[in-house]
């Protein structure tokens, strides 16, 4: 268990503001048990980054409160002393949104991990923010219910983090993102005021503040409780796999299927490099000669699934699938998904490092964008594996690189930046589900004009006028934007 530090450890934090640090820690000690305060460099090391480990920073102090009252007291303290505060869930985010602030407090919400109530009648759950995504689905299981958003980090990521990032997952094509599965949150403002957004019902009167807070990356407040929708488990789930000779053909099959009125529960695509890496890793029988693979999940009653399965199989065949495999049972369905779910670690095995991007594009642009990405890949001399949510056009190009080679990380970042601006150019966005954080700050002025960015800043100020909550993330400052524009025009 982490403990408070010896004096010598605290000394290492000193500098010109050493006195302030000691005062801050003393104040925190009045609010929290010793086990909830971490100060030593060594003990804070696990918290210095989120899932995007190339961005690292140690905070002044890390706090892990156990109660909502403690969270409120920490926020008030930070507000009173003008100390930056960065909220963090499980730290699985992929945009450095939870990277600590060098002069601030890192607020880790993982101990607020109680499922407060599951209401079987209304199919809702009230949870604390530190509840893990999969833990909620597990708890809902005995009631025949589950929580629909299922990001690939669902074993570790928390509901609070999901709210902050508006997380999706492989099933959001049919069942929506976090914003579509949330009824109410209790949020504490930087001043320590408790505000309830949303409600027990479906549409509260007035502006939709709940949706504004979802995906706001910890810039507007700290969520301490959430009421979410649960869904009844479908009586039948059917998974099938289709192999194609080109990503364009697979992309066309996706567009045709959606055009025919079928919205599968999940519709994922992997390209050749990702297929080979996944098959080498999990050996589930993926056709490694395929240039593209579609994994499609249908759910509903027996009658509904049978009806859709016939349409999907025919559509995939008509669009050039040279191999279609329909899972015979739950075990085979699980195996077919396993390769997709293990795609990131599988790619991790074939390259020392990889960098995961997250753009969304109109579905019809998939073929063009993937062709452009492979051209960019060649010109940068870096391999790119593509794994993505084909049904909703959310790409996850994985750029393979070796950080130990001088300059290769920078090249990977440049290539990543080019991919994101490509997404904007075809009418898409720089981030579909991972968030802006610190990582995509540079692309924000590319996607948004000055008026929109200024509106974002005024909105931020309405919640947090002194910019104490997760400063430097999500929304670029005016100065940053001016420098960006002058470089573009210079």
């Amino acid at each position: 268990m982490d403990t408070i530090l010896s004096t010598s450890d605290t000394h290492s934090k000193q500098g010109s503001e050493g006195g302030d640090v000691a005062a801050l820690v003393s104040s925190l000690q009045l609010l929290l048990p010793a086990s909830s305060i971490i100060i030593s460099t060594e003990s804070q090391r696990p918290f210095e980054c989120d899932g995007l480990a190339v961005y690292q920073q140690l905070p002044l102090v890390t706090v892990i409160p156990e109660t909502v009252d403690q969270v409120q007291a920490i926020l008030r303290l930070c507000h009173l002393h003008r100390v930056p505060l960065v909220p963090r869930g499980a730290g699985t985010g992929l945009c450095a949104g939870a990277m600590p602030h060098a002069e601030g407090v890192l607020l880790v919400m993982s101990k607020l991990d109680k499922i407060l109530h599951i209401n079987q009648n209304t199919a809702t759950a009230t949870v604390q923010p530190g509840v893990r995504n999969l833990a909620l689905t597990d708890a809902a299981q005995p009631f025949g219910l589950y929580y629909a958003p299922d990001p690939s980090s669902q074993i570790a990521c928390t509901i609070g983090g999901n709210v902050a990032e508006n997380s999706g997952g492989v099933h959001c094509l049919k069942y929506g993102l976090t914003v579509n599965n949330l009824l109410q949150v209790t949020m504490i403002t930087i001043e320590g005021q408790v505000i309830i957004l949303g409600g027990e019902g479906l549409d509260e009167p007035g502006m939709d503040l709940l949706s504004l807070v979802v995906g706001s990356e910890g810039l507007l407040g700290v969520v301490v409780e959430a009421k979410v929708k649960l869904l009844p488990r479908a009586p039948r789930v059917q998974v099938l796999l289709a192999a194609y000779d080109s990503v364009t053909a697979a992309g066309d099959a996706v567009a045709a299927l959606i055009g025919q009125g079928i919205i599968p529960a999940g519709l994922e695509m992997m390209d050749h490099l990702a297929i080979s890496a996944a098959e080498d890793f999990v050996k589930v029988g993926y056709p490694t000669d395929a240039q593209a693979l579609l994994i499609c999940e249908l759910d509903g009653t027996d009658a509904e699934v049978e009806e859709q399965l016939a349409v999907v199989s025919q559509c995939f065949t008509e669009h050039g699938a040279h191999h279609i495999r329909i899972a015979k049972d739950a075990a085979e369905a699980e195996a077919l998904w396993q390769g997709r779910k293990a795609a990131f670690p599988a790619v991790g095995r074939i390259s020392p490092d990889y960098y995961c991007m997250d753009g969304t594009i109109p579905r019809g642009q998939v073929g063009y964008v993937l062709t452009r990405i492979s051209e960019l890949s060649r010109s940068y001399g870096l391999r790119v594996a593509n794994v993505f949510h084909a049904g909703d056009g959310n790409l996850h190009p994985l750029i393979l690189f070796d950080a130990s080679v001088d300059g290769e990380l920078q090249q990977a970042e440049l290539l990543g930046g080019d991919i994101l601006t490509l997404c904007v150019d075809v009418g898409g966005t720089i981030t579909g589900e991972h968030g802006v954080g610190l990582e995509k700050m540079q692309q924000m002025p590319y996607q948004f004009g000055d008026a929109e960015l200024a509106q974002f800043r005024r909105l931020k100020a309405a919640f947090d006028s002194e910019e104490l909550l997760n400063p430097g993330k999500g929304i670029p400052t005016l100065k940053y934007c001016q420098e960006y524009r002058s470089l573009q025009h210079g």
Partner: protein
Amino acid sequence: MDDLTAQLEQQIQQAYTTKSPLKIQAGNTKAYLGRDSSGEVVDVANHSGVISYSPTELVIRARAGTKISHLNDLLSEHQQRLPFEPPSFAGEATIGGTVAANQTGASRPWFGGVKDSLLGLGLINGYGEAMQFGGQVMKNVAGFDVTRLQCGAMGSLGLITDVSIKVLPEFKTGHTLTFEMTAEVALQTMLRWANLSLPITGMSHLQGLLYVRLQGGDSGVASASEFLGGEQLVPKVAKEFWQAVREGRLLQPQHNQILWRWSGSSDAPIHALPDTSLINWAGSERWALKASSSTPADGLIQYQGGDRLAEVYGAISAPQQALQERIKHAFDPHRILNAGRLYSWM
């Protein structure tokens, strides 16, 4: 079918300079909602037309003055629909007003509200600046969600110029079943059926009858229908019923009456709203007509009728009010846009 953005921008810039209040209006079908407000009319009705529609992308983008009826017709040519089933009010309601007033039909619990289909929008704020938020793609988390913030804002944060909406395939088939039962029994029944994986797209109770609408594929609807039983309504009658539900025509307040809307947990007891006449959304929306004013309660709003200068949307907490005032200021510092429409202080 014109793009009047520049003209609308100019009118708001002018009002910003002179600090003159403006009243945003298009089809003028929802004047009875919210509080009464005054100001020079900004007419959005002619700022209309579909900007883009790609059936295979399931996305339609249209100017705010485009009529819901026009969108419905166009989508139905491609066997698609607006998922949130908005009222079209004799063909006059527009998509901009629908988003601002957050208007949804009976399918709300199953296919979501306006926010669940809204992908992006154009907005002119109280400075007279035209901006674009969100986009035309399914997933987008760049920047704050200013798009969904507008749902229910009644135009108090900006004039919506265009919206991008996710559309869905039209149902292959459907019909409505009715069951004779009291409101109490209907509430329990709705809760039970809502938790089964059935192709239900509407459950309402009115005057001793529970109405259950099934929509989906042929075999899914047929097997659900057989499972549930009940009496099948004549298609024309069913269509009229659900249209009346979404247009709020089933309960019309007479001269001294107020129509109250209650929104809350679907398992709240029947007395959560005394004198409930209509239960909608499988129990999470309830309606009552009363001769006089009612005691304010959680989730209760004065939907239609009565004093329209009162706080019709109920009370909110002091910190929440202070926050909303700051948000209003962030968009509309001179409070010129639909001032007081939502709350007296906004």
